[in-house]
């Protein structure tokens, strides 16, 4: 009896063993980078998983009630509007700077929109593909008002910086030959606590983020006026959405959703007037909004074949507005951040925003 039991156990175990080694081939192909359409997976799931920041007011911030808002958040909404026609179908996944690419690689998120700088290493080694830049930023230095005039004055100081970001590397390059302590923190809350306590002489980050942190500086510590951002910009920080390598359809979708907001601004389409172009004769606008194109040959719909509904841009603008509206709502001069458009203006206004033709 005992012997038979033993044989049975061994047989089951060895079968399991064989099964393990055999299935390894099939499961890996499915989990691998080449498998499955991201768009189909999102549609089947019914919600877009968007990796975001939750601690930078104006870009990605979660309030006490758990509501997300900000510039980056609006692009998550725009994507959801494009895919589902419903901007609320987003699951926000708050990530730290260090978690973000691992989350993307592990497919926890479909897209990373978390003030992430487009760099060659991230493009090359981290299996990510960057879409059109949504925000042209640069690194700056924030100090207590009146303490320093330029970064070159900051010898022997302690400079606080967020860990796991390009900011650390840029700081090291900028401070070559200037003795300093680079004190890194894991999150902005701890960094702010240290800064308020006075252990940091400088706070370095992308200028937009510094503006955000400055706007939220507690009144008990002197409020925004207690801080100033030095003139110098010492790096290029093009921030944009990133997706996983290997699914060009999804990468194109993310790219064109961003471009659609820019195209809408170029064409003067905004949240208020987006519904009023039914009779318009401007074919550029009609194509963008998915309206039938009328030519001498007759009337025909326009579909560039991105895999999205033809009226996706209309849903996007209805949900969040064009690029200028998104900018003004969260970052622009009339917000606490008060960052002028600068490089983030249309090319026609001296900025870098330029949408390839949607045709």
């Amino acid at each position: 009896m005992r012997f038979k039991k033993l044989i049975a156990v061994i047989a089951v175990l060895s079968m399991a063993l064989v099964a393990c080694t055999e299935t390894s081939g099939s499961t890996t192909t499915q989990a691998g980078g080449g498998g499955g359409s991201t768009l189909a997976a999102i549609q089947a799931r019914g919600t877009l998983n968007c990796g975001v920041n939750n601690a930078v007011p104006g870009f990605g911030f979660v309030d006490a009630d758990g509501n997300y808002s900000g510039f980056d958040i609006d692009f998550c909404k725009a994507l959801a509007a494009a895919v589902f026609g419903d901007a609320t179908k987003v699951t926000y996944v708050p990530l730290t700077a260090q978690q973000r690419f691992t989350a993307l690689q592990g497919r926890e998120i479909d897209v990373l929109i978390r003030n992430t700088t487009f760099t060659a290493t991230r493009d090359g080694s981290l299996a990510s593909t960057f879409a059109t830049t949504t925000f042209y930023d640069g690194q700056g230095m924030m100090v207590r008002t009146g303490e320093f005039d330029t970064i070159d004055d900051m010898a022997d100081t302690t400079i606080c910086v967020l860990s796991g970001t390009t900011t650390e590397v840029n700081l090291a390059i900028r401070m070559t030959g200037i003795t300093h302590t680079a004190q890194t923190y894991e999150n902005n809350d701890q960094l702010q606590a240290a800064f308020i306590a006075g252990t940091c002489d400088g706070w370095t980050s992308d200028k937009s983020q510094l503006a955000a942190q400055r706007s939220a500086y507690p009144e008990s510590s002197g409020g925004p006026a207690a801080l100033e951002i030095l003139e110098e910009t010492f790096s290029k920080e093009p921030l944009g959405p990133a997706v996983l390598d290997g699914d060009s359809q999804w990468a194109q979708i993310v790219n064109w959703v961003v471009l659609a907001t820019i195209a809408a601004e170029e064409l003067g389409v905004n949240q208020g007037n987006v519904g009023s172009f039914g009779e318009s004769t401007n074919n550029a606008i009609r194509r963008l909004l998915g309206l039938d194109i009328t030519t001498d040959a007759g009337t025909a719909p326009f579909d560039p074949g991105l895999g999205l509904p033809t009226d996706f841009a209309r849903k996007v603008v209805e949900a969040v507005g064009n690029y200028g509206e998104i900018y003004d709502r969260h970052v622009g001069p009339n917000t606490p951040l008060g960052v002028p458009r600068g490089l983030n203006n249309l090319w026609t206004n001296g900025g870098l925003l330029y949408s390839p033709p949607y045709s």
Partner: protein
Amino acid sequence: MAALTTDGLSARPPFWRSLKFIRWSIQLVAVGLSVAIVFYLWNNLIRNMRASGISTDFSFLTQALGVNIAGSDISPGAPIWRGLLVGIKNTFALVIVGVPLLTVLGVLIGIGKLSTNWLVAKICAVYVELFRNLPPLLLVYFMFNAVILQFPAVENSWDLGFVLINQRFVAFVGFVGQPGIGMYWLVMGVTLLIAIWVWIWRTRRWEQTGEPHRRVAWSMALLGAVALLAFLILGGPIALSIPAIDGRVATGGYQGLAQYFGVLIALSMYTASHVAEITRGSILAVAKGQTEAANALALKPTQRLRHIVLPQAMRIAIPPVISQYLNFTKNTSLALAIGYAEITRITFQTIGNGHPAPQMIALLMASYLVFSLTISVLVNILNRRLQYASR
């Protein structure tokens, strides 16, 4: 009937019915299965990483670190592996100071909890209950944000003569070698060997004749006398370097970052509360007859504790204390919450700067494994030497 009986006796049972075979085969299958599972998971990881275009080897370790590390003069151009070594060194700095600190603190509080003095016993009991029941991460945050960040700014550092304290760093008096320092170290090295020999000689003599050995007094007197004499003869080969504030930094002395002390103190106090409980339990576990015998010999309470109770309690305490040392070592990773550059911090930083996470995490795990196994081995050797020979 008879034939059957002889047959049954003479035929050996088949080999697969031997207990030895059964035990071995089960072990082998279990090992094989474990290896297969690990191999499967590993293979899956590597394939997926390759498919996503992520590098699967460790060649990135020679790339430039790219960042400065607080409290270290490593340059951004140094390779990543050197940065990891800085992290290991910083973790080690926490362990090497923290373990003795928490042991002394824990043992004292454990003894205090058994004190007949009501106040001492209650204070120690409150300490244990407070620190044992709070999460260590909370203690680290509290120690840094509510205590260390409230220290004065650099410009107004507390100057205690040989120690400077502020919210950025603590600077201690240091020693600077002057001409003749090499000779001095040589003399002291030789003297140390002689002192050890004196110690052994006094011990032997005591064992043979029963005269008081006074080995501490003998060897320390020798060391002290030579140290002083050599110092005077060589014209002061060692000078004190007293730290002073110069702008926002300190010159002279040895400096430690405030973050280091935040983690060190918080975790030492936390772990000491556990060690205190182990100490108390071990003392209570020493047979009551031992105490009574000591009393019968008219030993003073301090003598009783030092010569009778504690040596026996220590034997009981060592195994559970090892696991507290290991806990302390692993908990040092909480330092990343306040930005102290220990190994976990450096690992995460490197991952954040675009280097592959699986390899970095594997290296991190290996580092902690080495730390923990080293501590286990060292303390186990001690344990074996201290156990009763008869056990």
